[in-house]
Structure formats: structure tokens, C-alpha cells
């Protein structure tokens, strides 16, 4: 039975919430600012060995032989793992769609540069790396394919020969009378776009300590795991173990953004432990490993897209053809990323018909991994670019064409053609607020003056929906089973009245432990620092998933409030007995159990909990002496998608509107962001500091995507990026001072009206910067259609313009 939980802040059993909705200090921070948080690299265990991994230098090569005999003789080496071992002891990785997975070490052939081929466990990392040099691998290089389009050609090298083709997945979704919409439209705006590979790059790489228990035949892995229960299932499948023989203990991690990766490293360390008599084996990925072969490459997309528009600016149809280079295997959920735009396919607009033609292809690049936003950021780059092109063609202002097509407040809940339902919003008010904040008219005048002076200055106004509270159900369209992603917590009150909550996830940066403490402190009328939040590993946590898909804030709130309500009901029953009345006459306010309307007839929650544990003789009949409650929350209203992939896939729909002003340097192609304004509406802000923090962080990531970050491969699929000297992360000098403001349109469906907000600005910062660049370049008659819009790309565009260059 699901507990009835508060839907609004006013429903909390608190006379005045002191913590929820306030910008409180985070309880995580003291350990982080002192360097005392137990990041995995800090962990030392008795007898621990260190792992180093030998990786393929070839993008595509048969492995003829692996000779590890000299490495095994090297002093300090305890074990060497090769393809023979993994063939004997493991299964290939599960993938979506099924059947595109490989073993954690290459066995028959290597499919990308950096693919693990062998690994060593030794007394130190340096000794293990020394030993790698003694392993002899005989390769027979094969022709490689680095280009998604070439991978589709007849006679292209096959990544998986048994598949007979490099097409991992191909699907055409059609929603509504889309061909009719295009036939009837006054204008059809079409273009091609390219989004190059980029990705998460958390400041901490992945790390793990795996240990095989040879007596019990079980494995325990400690590390930087974003979704530990999900990870445990994957390990059980790989090792062929019952799932309760895999224990995943998640440590605080230095960021993730979906791109922590780590499955192969975890498995390799575990198998080395198995070979090394069960000693724990630590593997800490270094940055070069992360950049070449880690979990940080996402979205390698070619788009062809069209928008059907009427003369008055009404948009009626949207067609997208996607070719996505998933890389050498399906192990990193690239297919899910490509399918996620179904949740927001037509953005903020009332476009009535749409089509999505997706082709996912394997090449000899690194397998894609998730990254913040998962799939929509490139999709919005396409949609918002086409909307701007339509405005330009119709002579409309870019803000006005958007305003004309918005879903209106009285239309919610609103089902978009691709099936998802948006919960609430007021897009026009959001637009007006950001236009006011930016003083849009004045910005346009400033732009006109700059243009008269020969400067390339442009402005964009873009908007997007952030789908919040992810569920697997949407992804059965690409082969992922399941409906319902649970998040559970257990709240315990001890005999002294102290409150502890166990959660199934660890610290990652979003401040979720603080959120748990805020909710519980208000619910039970205590100070925040009286709440203890602890990580429960997969052996002891209630069903859980953790952060991902902008879900944890909402899901955690649901779980905490559900468990708190169950506890409250227990306390009411016990206190009623102690005070010789009925539970129906009782209430709990600010942590006091009171008889309604009777002054001073009250007991503190701590006394009730203490009585439950110490005086079971005083409990009502049938009541267990257990001041503890577990609640597992999952979003309501989920179902399998229909034959066109349509379903309610995300519970909440946050929205935002950005106004950006940029200048492109005519001589160098460098872009400077002159002004940046944001209004963001993610419903109730449970912790405004956390929300703002994630917003500004996502803007910085979006700037990196738009202007800087790119994993470059040569035509033979050799990666040309291996350090932060080549992969350009945004620095403090690349991110402008951004003015932001909040709108609050609560979700009618979520606990306390909060909407998923963890991914937010990355959905539209890349689109917004490119649209602003193209507004700047419009007088030259050229437009950027490739991300990142690096100086060399823009310089070439400017040079290609049929325009006097000496102005």
C-alpha cells in the first residue's frame, strides 16, 4: 500500500517549514572542503593489489595470441588476466538492443583503440604498469571504419561479423498525419546538422576495489557507482552469479553526469581478485584512459530535419532523420540516448505531427555512454535551429514565432505527438520574464549598432522542456525491459529519538543528502543536523535506483515523505494508546504528538519512539516495537509504450527560456558570450541553492558543448584526444556571468510539486549559443550547423561567405 504523502509544502506536519524550500547549507560540505570524503581512491584494504590494464593500440584487429608468461614472473605481480579467463568465467555485457555486447577483455578481436586486452594485479600501480610492458600480444590489424555513413556502405568493415551489418537499430516512428502537414504547409524549412562526440568528464575518473570471495563465490565491489542496484544486476549477469551474490558499495564520487562508466574496470578487477586468491584489487582509471576508453563519449550524430510552417508562423510538422554513431558495441546505452527525445520531441510547441527516423550504427569508435540530458540536447539544437530559420524566412522575431506556437497553460496536462504527457507550465510567462530581464528591445538596438560598426553580434531566444523523473518504460521501444524505477528509503528512530535515514545512493554532488535532511527535519520538527543520512549498499538498501534522468530529487522526496508518513501513523497509534484516546483524535505537528484541540495534551516524538523500543508492554495490541519505516516510491501512471513508442514516459516537464548575446570575431572565429539570461521553471524548488547550482553547472557544460569539447578521431578511428590539452573543458574564463531567475509552476503530479531539474540548462545552452552565433552570421549569409562551433569552423564559414571581408 502506498502511503498518502503531502503534495504541497503546506501539507507537511509543520507549523512553518524551516528547511524545505530554503537555501540551506549543505550537510555534505564540511567533509568535501576538508578533503575528508571517502572517495574510492582513498580506500586502502589489507592485502590490496593494484590493477593496470593493457589496451589495444588498434581500432580493429584480430587478436592472434596473448603471452603473459614474462609478466607473471615480474616481481610484485600476483595475477594476469587475459581473454582466456574471461571466456571461461564471464558472459558478454548485456546491451540495448540485445546482442551487441562483448567480454570485459577483448577475446577474438579488438573493436576500438583502448579496448582492454589483458590486465595485471600487482603490489603497486607502477609495478602493474611495468608488467604490462612484458605482455606480448600478436595483432592482425583489420580495416577500420570511423565514419557512421561509411559504416552503412556495402562492403564496410563489420564490427560484429555475425550481424551481417553495422546497423545496431533502425526504426521509423510516425506520429499523426505528418506527410499531410508537410504537404499543406506554406513553407518547409530543411537542413542538416552535425553534433560531434563529447561527454561527461567528471573531475574524478572511475575507480573501484573489487574482491572475490572464493568460499562463498560472491563478489563485492566498492567504487564510484551512480546506480548501484542497476550495476549489481549487470555484474550478476556478466559473472553468471545469483544477484544476491553481488554486493555493490557506492562511495562518494567526484561527479558523474551519467558518464562515470566503469563496468569493464569493475569486472576486470573482480576477476583479477579471483585469480589472486581473493585479495582485493583496486583499479583507478587515469584521465588518459577515461578520455580514450572510458565512460565519457556521447552523441555522435548526423541529422537531417524539416519543419512545416505556415505563413503566419504556425508550426505544424517536424521530421527528424538521425544517424547516430554508437561506437564499437552497445554496452553504454547509446540506443536509450537516441530514443529519449521521444519524451520532448516537439519541445514547447503545439506541433501536431512528427516523424523520427533513427538509425544507430556501429563503428570502431569508443562505445557511447550516457551524458547529462541523455539525448535531447542535440535534438533541441536541431529543433531550435530550424525554428530560428523559419523566423528568419518569415521575417518574424525569434521570440514571436515561439510565442505563437506555445502550449498554453490551460492545455495541461498536454500529450505531445510522440506520446509523453507534460504536467504543467506557463511558457509565455517564462518568455516574457526573461525578455524583460534581458531588456530584449534594448539588446536588439545594441546589436543593430554593433552591426552598423561591422561587428558580428547575435542574439538568441531559445526554450526547452526538461523531461523529469525517468522510467525504463519509454525504452522498451529500443529493447530495454521494465516499467517502474523504484527509489526506497528506510527511516529509523532510535531509543534516544535520533533519526537516521538509509538511502541507496552515495554523494555525487547534487546535494541529495541535504534534501533528505531538510525533508525529515521539517517533518519531525528537529534541526537539520540531527538527521543522519547514510548510504546503504545493495545488500541492505530498499529497492532503489539513484540519480539519473532528472529523477532523484523528486523520487527521494516521495520516498522520504512516504516513509515519514508511515512512521507518523505508527507514532499516532502509540501516542493515542499512551494518552488513552483514539488515533483519529491525534495529530503530529512539529514533532509533537497531540490530542487535537486539547492544550498541553502532547508528547514529543522522541518519547513515543523511545517507549516503542523500551516499553513494549505499553504498545497497542499488534503493534511491533519498531519505530522504523520503509517506503519505495515510483512515479504513477506508467505503462508500456504503444506500437509507435508512445507512452507517458516522464512524470514532470520543467521548462526554461534563455536569452543569449554573443559576438563572433570576424578575424579569428572566436565566440565571446556577451550576455546570458535564464528563467527556469522547475516547479517547487525544494532547495533553491541546489537548483541554481545545477543550473549554472549545466550552462557551463552547454558552453563546452557548443564551443569547445570534441572527441576527434582520424579516418582510421585513431582517437586524437587523450589529454585535457586536446579535450577543452570550459574554465572560469569561458563561462559568463549569468543572470537567472525562477518561475514556479508546481507539478500537479509530484510530491510537493517539484519537477526534475538536474539536467536542465544543457538542454538548451548549446542550441542557444549556436542560434545566437547564426544570428550574428546572418548578415554574411552563412550559418553554423556543426557542434562544437570551434574557431576554425567559424573562421572557415566566415571565409566562405560571399561578402566583402575587409569591412
Amino acid at each position: 500500500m502506498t502511503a498518502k504523502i503531502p503534495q504541497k509544502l503546506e501539507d507537511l506536519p509543520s507549523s512553518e517549514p524551516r528547511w524545505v524550500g530554503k537555501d540551506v547549507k549543505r550537510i555534505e560540505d564540511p567533509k568535501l572542503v576538508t578533503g575528508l570524503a571517502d572517495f574510492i581512491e582513498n580506500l586502502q584494504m589489507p592485502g590490496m593489489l593494484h590493477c593496470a590494464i593493457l589496451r589495444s593500440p588498434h581500432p580493429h584487429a584480430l587478436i592472434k595470441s596473448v603471452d603473459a608468461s614474462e609478466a607473471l614472473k615480474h616481481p610484485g605481480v600476483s595475477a594476469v588476466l587475459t581473454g582466456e579467463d574471461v571466456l571461461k568465467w564471464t558472459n558478454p555485457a548485456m546491451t540495448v538492443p540485445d546482442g551487441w555486447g562483448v567480454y570485459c577483455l577483448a577475446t577474438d578481436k579488438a573493436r576500438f583503440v583502448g579496448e582492454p586486452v589483458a590486465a595485471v594485479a600487482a603490489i603497486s600501480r607502477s609495478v602493474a604498469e611495468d608488467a604490462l610492458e612484458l605482455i606480448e600480444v600478436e595483432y592482425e590489424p583489420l580495416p577500420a571504419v570511423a565514419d557512421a555513413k561509411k559504416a552503412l556502405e556495402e562492403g564496410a568493415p563489420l564490427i560484429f561479423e555475425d550481424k551481417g551489418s553495422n546497423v545496431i537499430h533502425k526504426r521509423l516512428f510516425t506520429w499523426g498525419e505528418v506527410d499531410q502537414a508537410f504537404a499543406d504547409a506554406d513553407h518547409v524549412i530543411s537542413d542538416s546538422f552535425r553534433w560531434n562526440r563529447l561527454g561527461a568528464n567528471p573531475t574524478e575518473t572511475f575507480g573501484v576495489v573489487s574482491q572475490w570471495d572464493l568460499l562463498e563465490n560472491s563478489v563485492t565491489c566498492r567504487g564510484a557507482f551512480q546506480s548501484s542496484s542497476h550495476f549489481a544486476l549487470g555484474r550478476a549477469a556478466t559473472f553468471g552469479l545469483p544477484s544476491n551474490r553481488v554486493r555493490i558499495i557506492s562511495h562518494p564520487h567526484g561527479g558523474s553526469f551519467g558518464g562515470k562508466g566503469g563496468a569493464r574496470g569493475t569486472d576486470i578487477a573482480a576477476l583479477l581478485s579471483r585469480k589472486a586468491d581473493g585479495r582485493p584489487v583496486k583499479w583507478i582509471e587515469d584521465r588518459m584512459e577515461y578520455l580514450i576508453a572510458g565512460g565519457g563519449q556521447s552523441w555522435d550524430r548526423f541529422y537531417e530535419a524539416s519543419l512545416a510552417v505556415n505563413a503566419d508562423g504556425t508550426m505544424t510538422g517536424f521530421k527528424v532523420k538521425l544517424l547516430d554513431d554508437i561506437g564499437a558495441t552497445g554496452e553504454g546505452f547509446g540506443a536509450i540516448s537516441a530514443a529519449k527525445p521521444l519524451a520532448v520531441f516537439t519541445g514547447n510547441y503545439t506541433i501536431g505531427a512528427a516523424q523520427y527516423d533513427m538509425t544507430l550504427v556501429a563503428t570502431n569508435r569508443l562505445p557511447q555512454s550516457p551524458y547529462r540530458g541523455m539525448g535531447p540536447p542535440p535534438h533541441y539544437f536541431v529543433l531550435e535551429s530550424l525554428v530560428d530559420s523559419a523566423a528568419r524566412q518569415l521575417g518574424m522575431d525569434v521570440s514571436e514565432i515561439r510565442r505563437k506556437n506555445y502550449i498554453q497553460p490551460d492545455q495541461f496536462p498536454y500529450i505531445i505527438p510522440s506520446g509523453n504527457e507534460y504536467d504543467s507550465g506557463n511558457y509565455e510567462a517564462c518568455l516574457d520574464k526573461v525578455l524583460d530581464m534581458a531588456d530584449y528591445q534594448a539588446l536588439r538596438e545594441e546589436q543593430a549598432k554593433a552591426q552598423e560598426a561591422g561587428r558580428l553580434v547575435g542574439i538568441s531566444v531559445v526554450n526547452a522542456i526538461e523531461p523529469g523523473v525517468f522510467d525504463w518504460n519509454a525504452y522498451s521501444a529500443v529493447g530495454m525491459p521494465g516499467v517502474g524505477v523504484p527509489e526506497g528509503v528506510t527511516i529509523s528512530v532510535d531509543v534516544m529519538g535520533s533519526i537516521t535515514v538509509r538511502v541507496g545512493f552515495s554523494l555525487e554532488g547534487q546535494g541529495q543528502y541535504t534534501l533528505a535532511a531538510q525533508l525529515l527535519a521539517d517533518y519531525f520538527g528537529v534541526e537539520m543536523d540531527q538527521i543522519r543520512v547514510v548510504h546503504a549498499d545493495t545488500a541492505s538498501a530498499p529497492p532503489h535506483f539513484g540519480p539519473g534522468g532528472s529523477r532523484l530529487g523528486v523520487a527521494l522526496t516521495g520516498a522520504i515523505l512516504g516513509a515519514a508518513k508511515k512512521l507518523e501513523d505508527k507514532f499516532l497509534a502509540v501516542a493515542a494508546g499512551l494518552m488513552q484516546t483514539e488515533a483519529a483524535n491525534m495529530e503530529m505537528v512539529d514533532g509533537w504528538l497531540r490530542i487535537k484541540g486539547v492544550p498541553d495534551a502532547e508528547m514529543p516524538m522522541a518519547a513515543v519512539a523511545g517507549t516503542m523500543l523500551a516499553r513494549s508492554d505499553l504498545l497497542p495490541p499488534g503493534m511491533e516495537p519498531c519505530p522504523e519505516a520503509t517506503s519505495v516510491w515510483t512515479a504513477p501512471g506508467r505503462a508500456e509504450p504503444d506500437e509507435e513508442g508512445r507512452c507517458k514516459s516522464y512524470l514532470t516537464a520543467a521548462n526554461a527560456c534563455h536569452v543569449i548575446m554573443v559576438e563572433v570575431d570576424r578575424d579569428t572565429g572566436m565566440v565571446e558570450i556577451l550576455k546570458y539570461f535564464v528563467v527556469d521553471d522547475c516547479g517547487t524548488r525544494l532547495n533553491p541553492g541546489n537548483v541554481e547550482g545545477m543550473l549554472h553547472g549545466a550552462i557551463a557544460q552547454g558552453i563546452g558543448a557548443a564551443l569547445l569539447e570534441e572527441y576527434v578521431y582520424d579516418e582510421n578511428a585513431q582517437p586524437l584526444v587523450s589529454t585535457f590539452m586536446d579535450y577543452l573543458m570550459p574554465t572560469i574564463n569561458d563561462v559568463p556571468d549569468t543572470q537567472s531567475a525562477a518561475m514556479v509552476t508546481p507539478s500537479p503530479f509530484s510530491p510537493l510539486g517539484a519537477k526534475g531539474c538536474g539536467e536542465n540548462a544543457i538542454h538548451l545552452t548549446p542550441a542557444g549559443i549556436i542560434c545566437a552565433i547564426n544570428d550574428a552570421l546572418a548578415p554574411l549569409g552563412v550559418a553554423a550547423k556543426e557542434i562544437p562551433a570551434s574557431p576554425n569552423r567559424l573562421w572557415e564559414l566566415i571565409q566562405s561567405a560571399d561578402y566583402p571581408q575587409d569591412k
Partner: protein
Amino acid sequence: MSTKKRISLSVNGKLLEGEAEPRTSLADFLRDDLALIGTHIGCEHGVCGACTIMMDGQAVRSCLTLAVQAEGTELMTVEGLLDENHQLHPIQEAFIEEHGLQCGFCTPGFLMSTFELLEKNPSPSDDDIKEALGGNLCRCTGYQSIIKSVRLAAQKLQSANTAS
């Protein structure tokens, strides 16, 4: 394998000794041999700045410094920011108050770069702050809250100095 060298140095005001191979980085030596785990390693090629520490009054990348180069030096790591009563340094307080961190992995490096900046320039402009922290990468915050944190830290240190 080459033999280990003996290293004597001062860290956070304490005289310490240890042994390291010539190839061992100072970051690894601090973490593995001296158990000073607050110094984090983010890239090992001197770009991200997570491993920044103070060496003889200058901020340095401990991943690009060899342990043997620290012989006879005075180091300060993030652990050295706490006072003798384990109270947070005003810079640490400021980062908490202004949300200058999220995951916290890069934070020790930012704190040490900020420490160096404010030692040399007690009232920095925003441009000074950007100049000083331009070699530290943060993937979470988008930097604005870090700039605010450094401004607040400067204020806190100045009022502390005025008070004393």
C-alpha cells in the same frame, strides 16, 4: 627497479620523513605515504588543478612535481587549512556559504589556489580571481558560485585581520 630515496620535508607545519622512488609524483607520495588524502588527482597531466598544493609559498601541481623535488621544502595541503581546533578556514566557510562546490572533488585544488591568491592579493577583483583560478577545472558549478566564494573569503579574511 630504482631504489627509494629518503625525503624530509615540512607539511602543514609538521616535520615529516618518507621514502619514495625517483619516479613517484608528489601527489602520490602525499596520499599514499603521508596519508594526506585531501589532495586529489584529476588528470595527472597538470591541467585540472585538483592536486594543487602550496610549496614554499607558491601554488604548484603536485601531480607534475616529483616527490624527490619536495626534499627540504615547506608544503601546505588542504589539511593545513583547518586550525588546531579542527575549525574550518574562512576560505572553506566561504565555499560552503556560497555553494562553491558540488561534488567536491576539485575543491581542495580550488581552495589552495584561492589561498595563494588571497595571501598575495587580499582584495582581488573578479578578473584577478579568474586569472588565479583559470588553471582549476570544475565540472559541476559553472564557476559563478566559486567567484562569489572567493569574494566572500576575501571579505572574511579582511574582517578577521581587522578584528585582530
